């Protein structure tokens, strides 16, 4: 069965802290994504990776960076967390064969105080 695992379901951090969100997929997928989901704003793409060490900015990359050192793992980094980064973060992966099917993890709810 397809599995995308996000390391933390709930995190509470303080303003200015560095935050790491980890995501692992077991489907040998080429593509991995980080979205954030906010009420009234929907799902917005932060970063996309189409191969190891390759990445593209999404619609809202400011304040975030990513790392993909291994095919199965995609990390989202908040260098200095701010309160406006309080959100639900969703990792997803896809095969890269243009199926349009993204497999999402369960999400990480981050609260920045």
């Amino acid at each position: 069965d397809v599995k995308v695992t996000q390391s933390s379901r709930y995190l509470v951090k303080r303003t200015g802290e560095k935050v790491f969100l980890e995501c692992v997929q077991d489907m040998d997928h080429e593509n991995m994504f980080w979205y954030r989901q906010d009420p009234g704003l929907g799902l917005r793409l932060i970063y996309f990776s189409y191969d190891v060490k390759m990445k593209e900015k999404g619609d809202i990359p400011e304040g975030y960076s990513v790392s993909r050192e291994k095919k199965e793992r995609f990390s989202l980094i908040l260098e200095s967390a701010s309160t406006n980064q309080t959100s639900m973060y969703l990792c997803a992966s896809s095969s890269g064969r243009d199926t349009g099917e993204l497999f999402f993890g369960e999400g990480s709810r981050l609260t920045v105080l």
Partner: protein
Amino acid sequence: QKEVEQNSGPLSVPEGAIASLNCTYSDRGSQSFFWYRQYSGKSPELIMFIYSNGDKEDGRFTAQLNKASQYVSLLIRDSQPSDSATYLCAAPPRGRSTQGGSEKLVFGKGTKLTVNP
């Protein structure tokens, strides 16, 4: 205008009725559209996709694409309380920057559907 817009909602229908969910898009070159369902507290999952003008049926679900009018619809027949969820319309972004980039989907804000017993 956002690439994919869902302006209707929330939507409430009685059990057994037809629920109609709509989505408009701005890029006339868009070729493929996807409907994701997201239960409360859960992650989105793909339920339908459509590439061609017309209707595509899968069980109680029908996706409709009208390229001339630039809208996509999802009809749910014989709605059940278990269909209560937020439905997200999605499409690939304008252009295609990288291999697999067509899966870098742009999502609408979603329409929350409640089916009342």
